[in-house]
């Protein structure tokens, strides 16, 4: 029996992370079930002036090629997307991305709150939000938006995080459905996958 109360109505998974999240993301992507049916949209804090290298590093281990979407690129099932450096990544109604160079939010561009918030707006209760290790509060408000619109919220177990500020901030502002270690998040993805088989 699964510990997660899942179904096959989800449309997307969105992941936020900052300091200390890289290893977790790599682990999740490297053990992703082949043909995972949902798009995975990631906003991870990163160096603003380094355009190259990050997506390549993630793709190296990932089961699926990770891409940094262009502005207005359609969101495809099974695509794994990473917010490009120095841009905010939003999800638009009509199932495509948009990018922006607006002011930093929580000292960050890309800001996790923007990606999570716009995803929540578009996908409503069909969204799964996951927030990993990080050293600031970016993403907490985004997780609240996801919960408020009926989506599922997951944070990385704070004791396992290199820096627990980010998941703890989310836990303080909204209800978190599951507090999981990265290994359990890996299992969670497998459970999700089964719902669509």
């Amino acid at each position, binding site marked *: 029996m699964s510990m997660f109360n899942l179904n096959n109505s989800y449309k997307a998974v969105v992941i936020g992370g900052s300091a200390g999240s890289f290893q977790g993301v790599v682990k999740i992507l490297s053990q992703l079930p082949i043909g995972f049916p949902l798009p995975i949209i990631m906003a991870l804090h990163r160096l603003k*002036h380094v*355009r190259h290298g990050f997506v390549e590093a993630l793709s190296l281990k990932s089961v699926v090629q990770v891409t*940094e*979407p*262009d*502005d*207005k*690129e359609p969101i495809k099932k099974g695509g794994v997307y990473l917010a*490009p450096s120095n*841009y905010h990544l*939003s*999800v*638009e*109604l009509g199932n495509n991305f*948009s*990018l*922006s*160079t*607006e*002011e930093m939010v929580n000292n960050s561009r890309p800001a996790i709150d*923007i990606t999570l918030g*716009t995803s929540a*707006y578009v996908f409503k209760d069909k969204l799964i939000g996951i927030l990993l290790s990080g050293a600031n509060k970016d993403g907490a408000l985004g997780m609240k938006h996801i919960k408020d619109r009926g989506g599922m919220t997951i944070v990385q177990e704070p004791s396992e995080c290199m820096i627990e500020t980010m998941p703890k901030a989310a836990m303080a502002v909204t209800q978190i459905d599951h507090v999981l270690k990265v290994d359990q998040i890996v299992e969670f993805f497998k459970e999700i996958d089964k719902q669509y088989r």
Partner: protein
Amino acid sequence: MQDIDIVDLKKISEFIFQKYQYDFRNYAMSSFKRRIQRILEIKRLDVDGLMKKLTDSPAFINEFLDELTVNVTEMFRDPSFWRIMREEIIPGILLNHKQFKIWHAGCSSGEEVLSMAILLKEMGILDSVQLYATDLDTTILERAKQATYSLKNMELNEKNYIRFQGAGSLADYYKVENGYAVFDKDLLGAVNFRKHDLVLGEAFNKFDLVLCRNVMIYFNQTLQNEVLKRFHESLFKYGYLAIGSKESLIWCDYANRFIVANNEEKIYKKIKD
């Protein structure tokens, strides 16, 4: 932050179009919503309050435009782009024309046109180039003309200039006054700053190079398609169009009238009228 209904966003953009003839109806929804939320927050208004203010105080529209449009920019943003400009694109234009024209469309606070002026000066051809810089927002155009930037922004600008591998030091071009970097006015002496609306405005000249980087990301695809037609009309045959590093034109009707001049830096060349 207040959440705003899409119906309210449409009401606001429709009203502004009817009353002030600025057309935000085809702006990308997520960023337009954030900009409106930001204005409501700064002005401590709700949607009805904003509508009332726009109705009752016509002078407010300029302030509104200044806050609505995104004016975050850097000098030499994406230094590799500026190196390609210096090493490939501008030399390519110079092969055929000793004098030419550049348009910075949506120039905001002027960092890019200033970067271009410095690049051209270092190439020794600043006097041979006519620069046009346009924006919808007259407040920001005035700021662009001042070529004066807060010192806290200069750290990033300096870093970009070093990565651009400029001929000297960025500090050669400005003096520090009261916490601001005041750039040499001669750099912008020949720049033609003017108000221009990319959405409703007509083509007003012909150019060898148009730069419009990270502006069309605020438009939806319908509007991007229209604006590309305007750029096509504003370019000489074999002229260049530069867009932001994560923008794409492939879904536009006129995409096949351009070829890729540099894929990495998103520079296109018009090959068909």
